[in-house]
């Protein structure tokens, strides 16, 4: 009995010690290892692995280890712990909203450290990247990261339903008025019981505090811009989303949401689209493979978002890579970033992942040009980048301001609050946040 006990204790201790010790024996035969944290969706991971093998083939003495952290929320929580305990990765995804804290903690490099260094890139080369993306990579005007890919938002629509409703399937809605008109025409109540069997256009409405709250605000932004407005004043002295353009945009959303009784509709809009219960929605290029998989037996297309009273606009997004000061091989990490932003790598990555390239000149690569011609759905997203706009920088409180906007959207669409009133209340709360955390 005693012997068994001792044996068990010994075994437990042994395995604990093994798992505690860092695997230092794994000699990489002279290779430098760099660790990269990301939260790509599961369907992108195979593409990422292929991208990494391409990078490693071009840089035989670097080994790039990608580590997947599910959801962006978890990623930032893990980054905090890692920075505190000195185990930060070499490279990580990073969103501008978190830069205040990370710069404050002196955790990440300024990109100029590398760009202007010995292995740097020219200014001209840097500005081949879409300015909107460079802006999102910066905090207080200083570049702290570089974009890895771009995304924007387009309209997906069911061409068969357009035909059925007597609309031209090659002429999706061009203006807000047409959007409303088409939505009404496409919405269907077959048995006249007051419940719609089919919805014309999906307007998202998610709990403001939930993980999809930001996604809803992100989809709302282009409507403010289309009406000629901005979320924030250029000098960041106050928010402006409660001015007339913002109110116009929310009024449109509220009208569309309530007239189609979307409060009774599922939030799984892609499944609703595939099962022909929805005619039009907004979505990003990353979901193209999903539609190819789930849409059966009907004809669908993509189009630019309709233009608003003032102009045409779509929102731009992407993922941004930062290099951490705790990295032991920052120069190797920079090699990856430098390679990543090159047109060749961008073309490969875009084709593999269905994200958009971060620079327009990728189209000059014959292989990519051919890809665009062969993939008209994807091409819509690429061409729409000409209208892609970045939100004006919000150096402080960006996350909470988005939360307040989300709450205003929810209160107005679901809670039937007057759009102006809801946005005004959100603005009052947001205006208190426009300074560093230490002064709030």
């Amino acid at each position: 009995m005693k012997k068994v006990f001792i044996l068990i204790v010994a075994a437990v201790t042994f395995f604990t010690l093994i798992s505690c010790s860092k695997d230092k024996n794994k000699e990489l035969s002279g290779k430098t290892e760099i660790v990269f944290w990301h939260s790509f969706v599961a369907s992108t991971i195979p593409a990422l692995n292929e991208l990494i093998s391409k990078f490693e083939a071009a840089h035989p003495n670097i080994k790039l280890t990608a580590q997947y952290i599910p959801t962006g929320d978890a990623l930032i929580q893990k980054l905090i712990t890692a920075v505190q305990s000195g185990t930060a990765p070499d490279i990580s995804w990073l969103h501008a909203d978190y830069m205040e804290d990370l710069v404050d903690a002196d955790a990440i490099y300024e990109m100029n450290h590398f760009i202007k260094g010995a292995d740097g890139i020219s200014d001209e080369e840097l500005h081949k990247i879409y300015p909107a993306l460079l802006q999102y990579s910066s905090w207080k005007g200083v570049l702290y990261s570089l974009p890895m890919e771009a995304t924007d938002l387009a309209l997906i629509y069911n061409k068969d339903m357009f035909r059925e409703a007597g609309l031209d399937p090659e002429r999706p809605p061009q203006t807000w008025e047409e959007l409303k008109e088409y939505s009404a025409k496409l919405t269907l109540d077959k048995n006249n019981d007051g419940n719609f069997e089919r919805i014309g256009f999906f307007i998202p409405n998610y709990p403001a505090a939930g993980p999809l709250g930001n996604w809803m605000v992100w989809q709302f932004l282009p409507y403010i811009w289309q009406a000629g407005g901005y979320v924030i004043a250029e000098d960041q002295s106050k928010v402006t989303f409660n001015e007339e353009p913002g109110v116009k945009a929310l009024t449109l959303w509220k009208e569309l949401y309530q007239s189609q009784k979307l409060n009774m509709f599922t939030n799984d809009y892609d499944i609703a689209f595939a099962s022909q219960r929805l005619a039009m929605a907004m979505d990003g290029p990353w979901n193209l493979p999903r539609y190819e998989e789930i849409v059966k037996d009907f004809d669908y297309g993509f189009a630019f978002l309709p233009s608003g009273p003032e102009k045409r606009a779509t929102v731009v997004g992407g993922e941004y890579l930062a290099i951490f000061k705790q990295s032991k091989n920052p120069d190797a990490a920079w090699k990856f970033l430098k390679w990543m932003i090159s047109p060749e790598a961008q073309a490969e990555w875009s084709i593999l992942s269905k994200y958009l390239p971060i620079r327009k000149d990728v189209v000059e690569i014959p292989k990519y040009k051919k890809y665009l011609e062969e993939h008209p759905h994807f091409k819509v997203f690429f061409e729409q980048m000409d209208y892609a706009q970045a939100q004006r920088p919000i150096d402080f409180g960006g996350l909470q301001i988005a939360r307040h906007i989300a709450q205003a959207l929810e209160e107005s669409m679901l809670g039937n609050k007057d759009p102006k009133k809801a946005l005004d209340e959100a603005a009052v709360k947001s205006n208190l946040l426009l300074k560093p955390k230490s002064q709030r």
Partner: protein
Amino acid sequence: MSLNKFKNYFISSYSSGGGVEKKQRKGKSDILPAFAFLSPSLILFVIFILFPVFFSFYLSFQKWNMFSSESTFVGLDNYIRLFSDPEFWQVLKNTLYYTLGTVPINMALSLFVAYLLNKQIAGKKILRTMFFAPVVISPVAAAVIWRWLYDPNFGIINYALSWVGIESINWLNDPDAAMIAVIIMGVWKTFGINMVLFAAGLQAIPEHYYEAAEIDGAGRLSKFWNITIPLLTPTTMFILIMSMIASLQVFDIVYVLTSGGPLGSTKVLVFYVYEHAFKFFEMGYASAISYVLFAILFVFTMIQFKFMKVKF
């Protein structure tokens, strides 16, 4: 030190007389090995429970974003902000709504099921397993399934309701219905464990009480009311306290099912703590909310302990 000696130490410290003398003589040298043996669980307890408990109390008087190495002392600011924060009161109300909704239904249902399963009925074991299964399912996985069940267009619940002519309800997107939906799932998820506890309590009641009552001509209801209920009191009190504590701390199913929406109608205290701590990185404020939750739990538990003492 041999295991025997270790055993002696405990026996001697619990027995009176000579043991005490022995303990006084050798106390110091014996207590260290005892701690050595306890150390694996003690270390975990100290690092993951005791330290955070005190550290978060300290943090509730600080302002800290988790990133920076220093925090600023702000006195009672976090608590003052809390009591003037209208959202906090809303969240507190939601939490009490959830608790008052779940606990009574949960207890009544689990007692009822335990009582039925205590009788000899066919398929008892299968039924018991079925009722207990939700307890061991991961709450996140379960909530994802329930989200599908509640879906207004594809969900089976609305489909079933349509048979009896009830208009479809968008459970998770209706500020009036969402909390009810969470409560239903909460009860489903947790009543199994209480059922097992009640079943154990029921089996501990000696059969001859019932026999004696039958001889005196007591009916089924009278037996239940006059024998089962009073003799189950310790179990009932235990379950009441534990379910209250668990309900006031509900988080995972709310996070997955409704994310606190719609219109904040299902946002509960722990969700609010999570939001401030890990989304806005206001650790001080989040700690202050946690301590208010602790105070509420403490008061509730004390009141229940008082009642318990009266009963015995």
